[in-house]
């Protein structure tokens, strides 16, 4: 069936990170060069499919559905119909599994500034922007969306052990370090409910030389 031997498109999926929800698919090698795609979406439980106007008769193999799928309490489907302009009889469509941004979005690594001192390293975590906007028009941060979000910080000391700190505040300092020595700071975002964890942000940092005597 079409599923096993696709002619025009395959691998339809949502690629979502920090609530930016991009629908992506792959064309098929050797498919007609004049293939165009039409994207529709629908909220689970609604009877009607809606066209994504900016993604009708497009040749690209991705479409930004962030705005259309922004309600984190809802679940959505997307459908792509591919057709060849020249060979009208060739047409194929694919549909995504049920997508829920809240459950499926990946969390990007945090934005962190690593500041070395002589015997300590300070890590400053910055708010993580998302593609979601509030009704009064400001971009929401992960910290606003997930109130129980916290940060996990580790300082790796010569590849043998790590110093651990964690919490919700923005600034952290690892003390008791040796001057003029390299350390590796690793910071991840952790969200208890629904359980999500970001890939780590890693910075290499060298403490300053001690010039006090």
């Amino acid at each position, binding site marked *: 069936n079409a599923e096993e031997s696709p002619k025009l498109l395959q691998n339809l999926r949502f690629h979502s990170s920090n609530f930016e929800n991009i629908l992506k698919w792959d064309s098929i090698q050797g498919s007609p060069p004049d293939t165009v795609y039409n994207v529709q979406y629908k909220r689970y439980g609604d009877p009607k499919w809606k066209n994504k106007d900016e993604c009708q008769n497009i040749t690209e193999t991705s479409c930004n559905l962030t705005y259309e799928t922004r309600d984190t309490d809802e679940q959505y489907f997307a459908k792509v119909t591919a057709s060849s302009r020249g060979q009208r009889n060739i047409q194929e469509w694919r549909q995504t599994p049920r997508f829920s941004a809240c459950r499926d979005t990946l969390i990007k690594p945090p934005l962190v500034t690593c500041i070395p001192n002589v015997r300590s390293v300070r890590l400053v975590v910055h708010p993580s922007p998302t593609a979601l906007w509030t009704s009064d028009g400001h971009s929401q941060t992960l910290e606003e969306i997930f109130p129980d979000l916290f940060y996990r910080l580790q*300082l790796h*000391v*010569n590849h*043998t*052990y*790590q*110093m*651990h700190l964690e919490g919700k505040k923005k600034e952290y300092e690892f*003390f*008791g370090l*040796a001057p003029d020595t390299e350390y590796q700071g690793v910071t991840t975002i952790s969200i208890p409910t629904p359980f999500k964890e970001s890939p780590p942000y890693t910075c290499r940092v060298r403490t300053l030389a001690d010039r006090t005597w």
Partner: protein
Amino acid sequence: DAAAILPAPLDLSVHSINMKHILTWSPVIVPGKIVNYSVEYQGEYERYYTSSTWIPSSWCSSISTPECNVTDDITATVAYNFRVRATLGNQSSAWSTLKELFNRNSTILTSPRMKMSKDGYHLIVEFEDLGPYFEFNVTYWRKSPNSQVLYKIVREGGSLVHLETMEAGAEYCVKAQTIVEVIERSSAFNQVECVIAQDESPLL
């Protein structure tokens, strides 16, 4: 009747330590033959809502040893029952079941093995890796008059974790217990261990 010839396994019981649950039974001996066993389980739900249906165990359908790791079958904090039967060729014994139902909140929690080390003035601790259910509640203090007792939760075992930056020449003591949130229990504390920080390094 074929089942009557092959005796049913006896003495079923579950041994559970640190959330690892092992079902054991007395082997059925048939000289010169290899007897196989099949294990099935049911939770409280199956007993009361689905007229006592049974579910094949994840890992033990037709095994030859008289024990089965049922950890992956027990994933809720309710009373579970197990049944085992022996098979030899086309003969199958009757099913045997547990004398007492098993609930994972009765698992034995051992106090954690802990390794202490120093790196300069850094006090470092490492716990055994007991799996995803386990966290470690670490209590530590400096051995000096009216010193403060400090606490730290170590989220996972199997890695070296910095506990404290010690003061030169001071003695620090540590003890720890495991915490298993899903059954809302913790182990006893382990033996207190103390270390002394190196003295001030002389100025060159």
